[in-house]
């Protein structure tokens, strides 16, 4: 709490410190059709070439000298608007941009022109949700995380895997934010789909290098996902019916031009299919799986200076496995509940404040019954957060952001209960770990001159592990030793440190720029994974008195260029990343019990390093758009207790990673998409030798991650057919045929996943079969492949 007060005082003094000089132009930019604010829209003075880009809330502010100006407002997919203004005082201009039937790509080019090379941010990629929808989608479910995995520097965990790895960092090192609330597990169906329903998503922004100082708490990347706000002009329904899931969205005004809402829901029907597929005489009858999720958001303009937003997400996965033959069953539900309340306030044209209250709840449970033995494991995280972010625009050379945040974490890493018949086993008390995380930051994007732009930031973060808590002190895992009991409110351990962030851009004359950056981050939570693929069974474990916070730094540099009259964007980026205090489970450790033990006693700590080069060429205009991304990278881990302290490759260490993604608009009715992926195979640990003990075959594993699976490659294709958007009717007054737009729009999306049916490795295992003494004994290495060629069809509609 103390840290929050300090931060607020700090923010207040900062406000006073800056004085106003120039005249400001500020305001919001909206989509005229829906009334939604637009993120990333550009506003600039045509002759002076100075301007601003709207923030996450559609707000912009910049300064101009007094006098006559021609201001241009411009956004992706919408017509630009010019406004002549004689500036005599600070002025607010709120603009509604509308779309005509202008060629979409032309508009897009205008809107995006120059931002790619001009911004000081390295390794940042914004994805247009509408574009994602035309790319091939696995089982017809459009997925933003799948698309992100096609970008250079970002790789997937494994076939269909949802966990994503950015520049050699772990899947836990990505700060995934949905309307500013943290998402701990962004996946459904063991990671084959993400929790983000595209119908409810407005924008996606990935920062993989040089994290700005307003973000913290993770080492590798920020994935900012913003939900749609809902149409505040009229009511609309849209949805889709697909092979495995359907979705429905309803949006409309709460009060016209003042406020709106959007409610979106999605559910799979794999369970219904399984019910038909598995007869009631089968031992597997009752095995089922489904997930559902719901998004809701409300916003309301309280006045010209104030706006509030309420956002919520709730999703659950339920997996049930039944095997009557062995009298065995498993129930595994998991999911997230996320809520955020935000208040935007414009103090004056130069000062913007967003205040957020966030709530995150992630729960995972695994229950099994075998004969009379019952076992249950639960794990969860609950976060209560608050933050204030100020944006201050003193003049055109400085854009300053500062703020503070605080999160109260309640972690329940593992809570086990077990009973047999009527006997309840002693599985220890539920262990909860309480953590207080806070941070303050200031950053300034400073234009030294027209060519040199510097973004310097400093963040100070703190973490306190507090009681109640029971620490089992171990000198040896299997022998219970002394116990330290901390009471409620006791400060057990405190950590903190400065996190400097620096990035710069130098603009060359030939539409190109050089950028470089350095960032240092702390991360106060670990994800301990016992499996080679990312599963919901992975355990989030916070910083404690003995589990130290992860630290990471990254140095990156890149050359960015616009090519062929701005039809292409090309970049080359290189990076080196160092990571410290990473965790792994000790060899053979299983997070199954809490009796006289803490999970962090089972962890071992080490370092990581990663370096690589990324090449990216994107075609942004014309009927054919898309990109080619190639990454060369190396990622290693060094743990004193693993592999005798020698460096070993991370399981997602990939030397080569190539993606070719294209979307071709043939005409108004047909759009085609294709994506090709090639990646060096993942590593894993397999037995390198075997021996016999008491008649049983026992394996001895090779060094950690020493085996590499076969290369991964795949081609997916898609086609989208848009039903006619216009119809001809007879004008009752004139009797002439006229063309009117249909209110009901729909399209059919066809896709083929893995078109040449490549058997990509999901994992390998060593199988032994037969009897040693009968001579039919055999040891084989087997490869498991998940997805063969899979066609899909989805019908989407909107009215």
């Amino acid at each position, binding site marked *: 709490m103390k840290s929050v007060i300090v931060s607020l005082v700090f923010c207040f003094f900062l406000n006073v410190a800056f004085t106003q000089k120039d005249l400001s132009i500020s305001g919001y930019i909206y989509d005229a059709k829906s009334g939604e604010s637009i993120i990333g829209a550009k506003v600039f003075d045509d002759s002076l070439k100075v301007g601003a880009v709207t923030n996450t809330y559609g707000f912009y502010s910049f300064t101009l000298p007094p006098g006559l100006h021609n201001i241009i407002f411009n956004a992706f997919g919408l017509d630009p608007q010019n406004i002549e203004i004689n500036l005599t005082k600070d002025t607010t201009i709120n603009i509604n941009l509308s779309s005509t039937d202008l060629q979409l790509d032309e508009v897009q080019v205008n809107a995006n022109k120059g931002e790619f090379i001009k911004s000081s941010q390295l390794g940042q990629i914004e994805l247009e949700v509408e574009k994602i929808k035309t790319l091939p989608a696995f089982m017809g479910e459009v997925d933003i995380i799948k698309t992100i995995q096609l970008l250079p520097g970002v790789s997937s965990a494994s076939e269909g895997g949802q966990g994503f790895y950015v520049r050699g960092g772990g899947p836990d090192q990505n700060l995934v934010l949905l309307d500013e609330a943290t998402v701990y597990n962004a996946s459904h169906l063991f990671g084959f789909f993400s929790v983000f329903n595209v119908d409810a998503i407005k924008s996606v922004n990935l920062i993989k290098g040089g994290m700005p100082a307003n973000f913290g708490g993770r080492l590798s990347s920020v994935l900012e996902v913003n939900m749609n706000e809902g149409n505040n002009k009229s009511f609309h329904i849209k949805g889709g019916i697909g092979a495995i899931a359907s979705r429905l969205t309803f949006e409309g005004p709460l009060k016209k031009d003042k406020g709106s809402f959007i409610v979106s829901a999605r559910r799979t029907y794999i369970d219904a299919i399984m019910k038909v597929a598995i007869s009631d005489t089968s031992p597997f009858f009752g095995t089922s799986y489904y997930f559902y999720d719901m998004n809701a958001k409300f916003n309301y303009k309280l006045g010209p200076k104030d706006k509030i937003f309420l956002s919520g997400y709730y999703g659950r996965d339920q*997996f049930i*496995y039944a095997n009557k033959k062995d*009298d*065995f069953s*498993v129930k*595994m539900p998991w999911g997230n509940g996320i809520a955020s309340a935000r208040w935007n306030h414009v103090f004056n044209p130069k000062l913007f404040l967003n205040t957020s209250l966030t709530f995150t709840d992630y729960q995972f449970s*695994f229950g*099994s019954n*075998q004969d009379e033995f019952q076992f249950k494991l639960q794990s969860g995280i609950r976060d209560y957060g608050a933050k204030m972010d100020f944006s201050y625009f003193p003049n055109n050379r400085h854009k300053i952001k500062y703020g503070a945040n605080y999160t109260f974490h309640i972690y329940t890493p593992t809570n086990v209960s*077990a009973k*047999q*018949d009527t006997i309840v086993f*002693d599985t220890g008390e539920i262990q909860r770990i309480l953590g207080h995380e806070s941070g303050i930051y200031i950053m300034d994007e400073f234009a030294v001159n027209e060519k040199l732009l510097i973004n310097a930031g400093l963040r100070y973060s703190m973490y306190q592990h507090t009681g109640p808590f029971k620490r089992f002190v171990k000198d040896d895992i*299997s*022998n219970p030793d002394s116990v330290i009991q901390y009471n409620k409110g006791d400060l057990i351990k405190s950590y903190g440190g400065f996190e400097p962030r620096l990035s710069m851009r130098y603009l060359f004359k030939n539409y190109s720029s050089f950028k470089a950056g350095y960032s240092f981050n702390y991360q106060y939570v670990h994800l301990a994974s*016992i*499996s080679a*693929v990312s*599963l919901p*069974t992975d355990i989030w474990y916070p910083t404690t008195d003995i589990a130290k916070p992860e630290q990471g730094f990254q140095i990156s540099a890149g050359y960015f260029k616009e090519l062929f009259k701005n039809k292409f964007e090309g970049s080359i980026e290189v990076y080196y990343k160092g990571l410290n205090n990473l965790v792994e489970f000790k060899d*053979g450790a*299983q997070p*199954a019990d809490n*009796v*006289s033990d803490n999970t962090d006693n089972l962890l071992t700590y080490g370092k990581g390093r990663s370096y690589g080069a990324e090449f990216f060429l994107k075609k942004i205009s014309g009927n054919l758009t898309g990109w080619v991304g190639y990454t060369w990278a190396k990622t290693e881990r060094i743990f004193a207790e693993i592999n005798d302290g020698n460096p070993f490759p991370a399981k997602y260490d990939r030397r080569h990673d190539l993606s070719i993604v294209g979307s071709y608009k043939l005409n108004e009715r047909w759009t085609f998409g294709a994506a090709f992926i090639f990646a060096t195979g993942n590593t894993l*640990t*397999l*037995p*390198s*030798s*075997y*021996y*016999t*003990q008491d008649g049983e075959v*026992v*394996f*001895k*594993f*090779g*060094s*950690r991650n*020493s*085996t*590499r699976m*076969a290369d991964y490659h795949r081609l997916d294709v898609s086609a989208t057919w848009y039903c006619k958007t216009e119809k001809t009717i007879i004008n009752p007054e004139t009797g002439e045929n006229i063309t009117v737009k249909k209110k009901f729009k729909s399209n059919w999306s066809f896709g083929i996943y893995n078109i040449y049916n490549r058997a990509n490795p999901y994992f*390998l*295992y*060593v199988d032994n079969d*037969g009897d*040693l*003494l009968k*001579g039919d*004994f*055999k*040891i084989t*290495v*087997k*490869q498991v*492949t*998940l997805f063969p060629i899979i066609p899909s069809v989805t019908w989407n509609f909107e009215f």
Partner: protein
Amino acid sequence: MKKIFYLVFILPVVFSCTKEVKIDIPDYEEQIVVDGNIETGQPPFVILSRSKDIYAPTDLNSFLNGFISGAEVYVNDGTTTYQLDEVCSDELPPGFESFAAEIFGVPESEVSNYHLCAYTKLDGSIVGEVGKTYTLTVNFEGKTYTAETKIVNPTPLDSTYFKLANNATDKGFSYAQLTDPPGFGDSYFWEAKRINKNSDGQEKDSYFTPTYAPVFDDQFINDITFEFYFENPVRDPDLPSEYRGYFKVGDTVVIKFSKLDKDVYEYMDSKYIQLQSGGSPFSTPTNVKSNIKGGALGVWAGFSPSYDTIVCQP
């Protein structure tokens, strides 16, 4: 308890397809493997072999040629050191063929065709005693391997009985009640064999078989009295599939319930974890622990058994 946790890892493989591949698995090095034990009232018994590359031939000949002879093996009981005798299958006194066949798992008729050696002391000069610590020393090809194990105090079961399985009339499980002594660190190992006779007059099982998850320690059950049950571990090919894992009404079952020292428990526990996870990548790769020093694999295990007999009648 741990076995249940593994079952979750099998689950995502529902849609998958599997094929055999040949892929480079580095890091193979040949190591000596010790499989030695000493139990209350029995002489020490040691078999030595070599580990093999994962792609090495797996035929019977290659398997049997993996056993080692020509080593010097010593056991010290705290006061005296005894050199164990090398006893080889091709030089056995008549009558010992079935014993050797069981140990090496070779058909009785084949025993004399191979040179399979074990190290033991059959003259009665050294037999396992409760409370004693035994040190093993193996000298082979210029290298020395050592290990230590203790025969701890036994903890017999309070009682044992048979109970029918749910909805069954002629099959069930073996149940037991155990009172764990105060203090952590007690470890147990459960084996069983059926001694009722077959039609040929032989006992159904000639040796004890450990159950599916035969070892447990007192982490969950320290200082309490509790009941538990085990299945029939014998993989009897003559048993119809619906009876696999069950004892039949009419069986007479001997339970061998051994206590282990800590290192042997860790060896056993890691071995059974590995056997159950079956090389699955969904678990951390678990190498079987060893209490052998000097770079060999395997175990030198002291067992402290107590025995119970269950007559399977509902």
